[in-house]
Every structure is written in C-alpha cells, then in structure tokens.
C-alpha cells in the first residue's frame, strides 16, 4: 500500500492549499484529487460579485494558478463525488463505484447551500449560489428590471443583492434577522449596511420568512409570513450551508457537525480515537481555536481553508515520512479568522470571531463613512471590523488571546 497516493476529496481551495503545503513540507509522492465539481479549484468570493455581473466570465477568471510543485505527480479526477469511506481498508469509493486507495486522506468536501425551507412545488426560477455553475445560471436571469427576491441576509445574500441592484434588477431581501448581517457584524454595522443597500434601491423585509410561492411553471410571486406578496422572477435561497459529510456516514468518524478534528486537523472517531492518516480542512472541518475558547466549531471564513490546508499539509508530510507528529500537533493550531466583503463602495474587513460577541463598539470614524468597530464577549475582545481604515484594522491582528481559563 506504500504506493497509494495522498487522496484529497474535494478539488477546492482548501484541498489545493493542503497539497501545496504537503509538497512544501517535503512530500514528493503521488497526489490524487477527487472532486464532485467538474472544475479544478477556483476562488468562490467572485461568484457573488465580479463573475455574477460580468457576462462571459468563467472558470479561467476565478481559477487558482496551479504552481510548479503540483505540475507533476498529481491526478485530477473531476466531476465525480465520493460516496463512501472505508477507514479499515483505506479506500474511498466514488459515485461510479471506482475505489481510490490512499496513504493519507484529506476531507475537503466543503458545504452546500441549505435548501428552500418551504415546499418549492417543483417551480423553476429558484436559485442557490455556491458553485461556479450556480453563478453562471443565476447570472443569466439577473437581468435589468427582473424582480429578484433574496431569502437570507448573510454575506452571500447581501452580496448578491448588491450585484443584482447594480445590474438594474428590482431587489427585495427577506430575512428573519432584525438587520442584515446581524450574526456576523452585529446590529450597528448591520443597520448601516442596510442603509447603504436601501440607498441603492434594495428593499428589506426583516423579521419575515416565506409562507408560500405562486406561479407555474416558474415562480411569479412569493408570499411572506406577514401576508405581504412580492413579484418574483428570481428567488435566491441564501439561508446558510450544510457540510458535505453524507459520504462519511458509517465510516466511524465524528461527523455530527462537519468533521471533528484535533489540533493537527486529524479526524476523530465517534469513539474518540484520532485517525493519524485522515485530515479535514476548510469549511467542513470542526476544531477548537485556543485564541477564543475550547469549543470545536466550523468557521466559514475565507482565510481558513488556506490556514487549515497549510497546517494539514505539514502534518501529512510528517506522517507519510514516518516522523513523529506529536511535536507538530503540540504546537497547537490557533489561526486568526479573517473575512471581508465588498458591497457597493463598502469594503469590509474583519478579524476574529465577531459573531461570538454580545456587543460592538464604534472606536474610530463614523458609521456612514469609514469606521472601525470592536466586538466583545463580556470584557473579552473577540473581533474587529472596519469599513476602510485598513492600517487600524490590521493593527488588531496581535490583540486576540483568550484569557487564561482555570
């Protein structure tokens, strides 16, 4: 079995960074990517922004460059989803029934959008946005004058709203939250971003959900729980994501919410054993971050696929070289989460875990212009977020450390 490759399930940013990390740390053996999507790894954030508003953009505009370290010894098996993992035999089975043996396995299968929370009656005109194919399909219907209803006011929903409004669509955002982006940015900044959206003609229906859909064969109107009815040519469902772990059911790994891993990003079984040759990276991995506390979490921020991939790559190289991994694992893993968002001329940059906060405080600038907010959980600084004022926001990088816990 020594010839078996490093198998990376999920041809994603996290998978790519893991492979690069393993090569950088000295692993020279074969690597196989098994990806459900037909595309080589690409960057997802433009899917709700540039690519969504620019006719003709495609994979080449968002693809990650494949660096020289991965030009040799890498096999790409794309357009095929994994369906099962046999931990004992060290084999992954794909949807065609083909078996893929591995020396080390990386789980990088990411997330998929949660579905419409009510019956869709098989109607057309209902979209989600996660993949490149999703974005191309949505772009083709975001025409000037189209009535676009977006369910959900997180980053994906708000960025689609901004892009659709810029494209001349009539945009309504329906959300159970009191203000958009409430969970990530808190009520102050959320209200300000709502104001900026409204200045571009976006209407918000907050504290609302969908009651029903009208139309045949495509959606024509949506009915909100308050009874309000909205014209709707395009309904975008952006109410969060679920981890792609169905293929790991029965494997013995703890997949109760993503893949539970240790500080070496090594998968933990339902019986608590660590699997030293199985790793999880990116959005699908659940791990504690000692900068904040000891609670294992899945964190969907854009920089973490890269951070987890680099970290796992180091461990994989050590594991496959037969080295003792314990010293590397004992170094701990405490990546500083970072996220960013572009909506109109607001370029938002944040560090930390803002959504752990119970309050936010404006510390510089003014909300309607450039500003910086600090986020606190009790007395503990857990996040910072700014519109503009980059140097000040960047200066917070070193200020996160959980207070010693007895």
């Amino acid at each position, binding site marked *: 079995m020594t010839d078996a490759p490093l198998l990376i399930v999920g041809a994603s940013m996290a998978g790519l960074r893991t492979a690069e990390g393993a090569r950088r740390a000295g692993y020279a053996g074969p690597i196989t990517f098994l990806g459900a999507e037909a595309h080589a790894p690409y960057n997802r954030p433009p899917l709700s922004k540039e690519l969504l508003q620019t006719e003709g953009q495609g994979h080449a505009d968002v693809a990650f460059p494949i660096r020289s370290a991965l030009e040799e010894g890498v096999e790409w098996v794309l357009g095929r989803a994994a369906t099962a993992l046999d931990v004992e035999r060290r084999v992954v089975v794909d949807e065609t029934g083909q078996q893929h043996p591995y020396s080390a396995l990386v789980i990088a299968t990411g997330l998929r959008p949660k579905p419409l929370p009510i019956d869709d009656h098989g109607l057309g005109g209902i979209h989600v946005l996660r993949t490149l194919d999703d974005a191309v399909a949505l772009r083709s219907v975001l025409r000037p004058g189209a009535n676009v209803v977006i369910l959900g006011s997180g980053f994906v929903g708000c960025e689609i709203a901004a892009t659709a409004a810029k494209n001349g669509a009539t945009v309504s955002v329906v959300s159970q939250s009191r203000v958009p982006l409430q969970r990530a940015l808190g009520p102050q900044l959320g209200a300000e971003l709502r104001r900026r959206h409204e200045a571009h003609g976006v209407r918000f229906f907050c504290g609302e959900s969908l009651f029903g859909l009208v139309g045949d064969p495509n959606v024509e109107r949506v009915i909100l729980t308050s009874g309000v009815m909205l014209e709707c040519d395009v309904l975008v469902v952006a109410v969060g994501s679920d981890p792609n772990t169905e293929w790991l059911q029965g494997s013995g790994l703890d997949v109760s919410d993503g893949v539970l891993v240790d500080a070496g990003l090594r998968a933990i079984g339902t019986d608590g054993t660590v699997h030293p040759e199985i790793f999880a990276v990116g959005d699908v991995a659940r791990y504690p971050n000692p900068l904040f506390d000891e609670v294992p979490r899945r964190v969907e921020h854009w920089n973490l696929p890269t951070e987890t991939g680099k970290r796992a790559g180091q461990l994989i190289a050590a594991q496959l070289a037969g080295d003792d991994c314990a010293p590397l694992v004992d170094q701990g893993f405490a990546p500083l989460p970072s996220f*960013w968002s572009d909506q109109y001329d607001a370029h938002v940059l944040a560090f930390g875990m803002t959504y752990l906060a119970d309050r936010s405080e404006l510390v510089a600038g003014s909300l309607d212009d450039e500003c910086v907010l600090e986020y606190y959980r009790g007395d503990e600084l857990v996040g910072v977020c700014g519109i503009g004022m980059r140097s000040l926001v960047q200066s917070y990088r070193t200020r996160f450390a959980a207070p010693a816990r007895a």
Partner: protein
Amino acid sequence: MIKITVDMDKCQHYGQCVFEAPEVFQLNADDKLEYKAEAPDDMLADLEAAADVCPMQAIFLSKE
C-alpha cells in the same frame, strides 16, 4: 529574482499581503498598497503566502 505584479484595478487595499511579506508589501500613509516589483528567490514561500491571502487574488508571481 521573482517578479511581482499586482492588478491595481482589482486591489482593494485590504493589506492582508503586508502581514505575510512586509519586505515587499506596505500600506502607505493613505492606506493604499505599495509594493516592490522584484524580490529574491528565497522569498518565494512568503510571496506565495501573500498571494494566497489576497482577498481579490490580485497578486501574480513569475520567475525572472
């Protein structure tokens, strides 16, 4: 040497690259990105890290 190009039409001056390779990338007094167009080969890992963390994926590296 490694040649560094930043697509300044894409760049939103987030400054994430500055943290990874401060010898090459800087935010100036107006919080705008400035960078050196060349760096020695031994900086490749840092420069790749800077390119990786760029939210706009606006940093391009090539061998000279």
